[in-house]
């Protein structure tokens, strides 16, 4: 069984162990973050895949498992494990990430900021493209796994997330600042997304295929160079329509084909994800240790 299949299977296994479900209400973005945090004490387990084409080399399938926990109503913390398979090459684990998001303002405004801090420990074979930064381009992915995995990267990643809701639309903008903790310059990137449920009013019947459960949108993301060469020159850029299906059983499915917008980008990527939310996970853990009902 491949590593990606094992990761996906582990989600189903956890879903069987924890039968309580919450109907999630997620936007379809794969890269862009919106302003919403995980509900307090809920745990969301997510699996994402990216199939990418590679000119001059082998196509790849990169994937990650994500544990997202609502520590409070204003703080969400996440842990990622990621890996990739390069066809005709090998499968390698590529590292882990620990991310925290904070909502600093008490009220809802027209534009709502969220602060994001992440530590990444990944190797050079990382291909999940969870974010695009600096001068990351398609040619970087040509290095064989055996060689690329020897390069270890420790990065601090900061994001300013801005999100707005207007007449059913969500519009989110992310500004990305990344510092490799060796002596390398700050790198920059961005992601923007817009989405809307297919229906704004909830149905009076519980249904899987009601239009309110589908959220459609698009996102655009790419690098913005570094401290010394800021701008779009020699950066990769993508445009990606996206669709999410929030199933009443608590699952969310996402799919997003991404198209490279210049010669430095992969021509095509197909990204999809599955998420499952466990309400009150923090309380369950607390009960295990305190014995209180």
């Amino acid at each position, binding site marked *: 069984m491949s590593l990606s299949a094992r990761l996906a299977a582990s989600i189903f296994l956890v879903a069987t162990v924890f039968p309580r479900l*919450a*109907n999630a*209400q997620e936007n379809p973005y794969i890269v862009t973050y*919106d302003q*919403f*945090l995980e*509900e*307090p*004490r*809920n745990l969301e387990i997510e699996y994402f895949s990216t199939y990418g084409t590679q000119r001059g080399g082998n196509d790849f399938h990169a994937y990650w498992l994500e544990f997202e926990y*609502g*520590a*409070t*109503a*204003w*703080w969400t913390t996440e842990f990622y494990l990621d890996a990739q398979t390069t066809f005709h090459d090998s499968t390698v684990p590529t590292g882990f990430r620990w991310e*925290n998001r*904070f*909502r600093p303002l*008490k*009220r*809802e405004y027209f534009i709502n900021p969220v602060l994001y*801090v992440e*530590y990444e420990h990944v190797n050079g074979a990382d291909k999940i493209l969870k974010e695009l930064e600096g001068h990351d381009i398609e040619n970087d992915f040509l290095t064989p796994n055996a060689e690329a995995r020897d390069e270890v990267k*420790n990065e*601090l990643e900061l994001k300013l997330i801005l999100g707005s*809701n207007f007449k*059913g639309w*969500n519009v989110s903008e992310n500004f990305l600042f990344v510092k490799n*903790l*060796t*002596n390398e310059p700050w790198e920059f990137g961005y992601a923007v997304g817009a989405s809307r*449920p297919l229906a*704004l*009013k*909830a*149905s*009076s019947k*519980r249904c899987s295929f009601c239009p*309110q459960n589908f959220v459609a949108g698009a996102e655009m993301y790419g690098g913005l160079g570094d401290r010394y060469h800021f701008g779009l020159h020699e950066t990769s850029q993508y445009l990606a329509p996206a669709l999410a299906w929030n199933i*009443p059983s608590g699952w969310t499915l996402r799919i997003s084909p991404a198209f490279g917008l210049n010669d430095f980008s992969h021509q095509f990527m197909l990204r999809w994800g599955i998420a499952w939310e466990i*309400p*009150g996970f923090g*309380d369950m853990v607390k009960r295990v240790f305190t014995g209180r*009902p």
Partner: protein
Amino acid sequence: MNNRRLALAFFVVSLGPVSVFAQKQASAADNSHDYSELNRAPAKVRARMNPFQSDPDAVVAGQLLFEDHCTECHGPAGGGGKKGPSLRHAEVQNAADGTLFWLLTNGVAWKGMPVWSKLPEAQRWQLVRYLKSLGVNDVFKVDKKL
């Protein structure tokens, strides 16, 4: 290498105070099931009318939304849970629809109530319709030490 370790140590240590603060906030939330936040709704918002006031399906739709998003904290039928207060208290039931809509939209993040603006406006109004259909019942008030 040293820079890397220092930055990682700083990152981990800086989360410590945040975590302690968060726990205090959560514990404060557990002990303060008051309804004073309702009084903070601006007058202009309180006056807003529920566009689903005459829609008979809105109560049922609101109930489904409530079961999906609210029972975890507020208990089944809004009677109150360990984390969230009863929504059948007179303070809630006598509040204007606009006030409840405003509270749902803004949340009370510092006391544990998340922002629910992720639900479209129509669905928040449907939730309000359901909440107001529950009626007053103070018997549901929960002893949090149970």
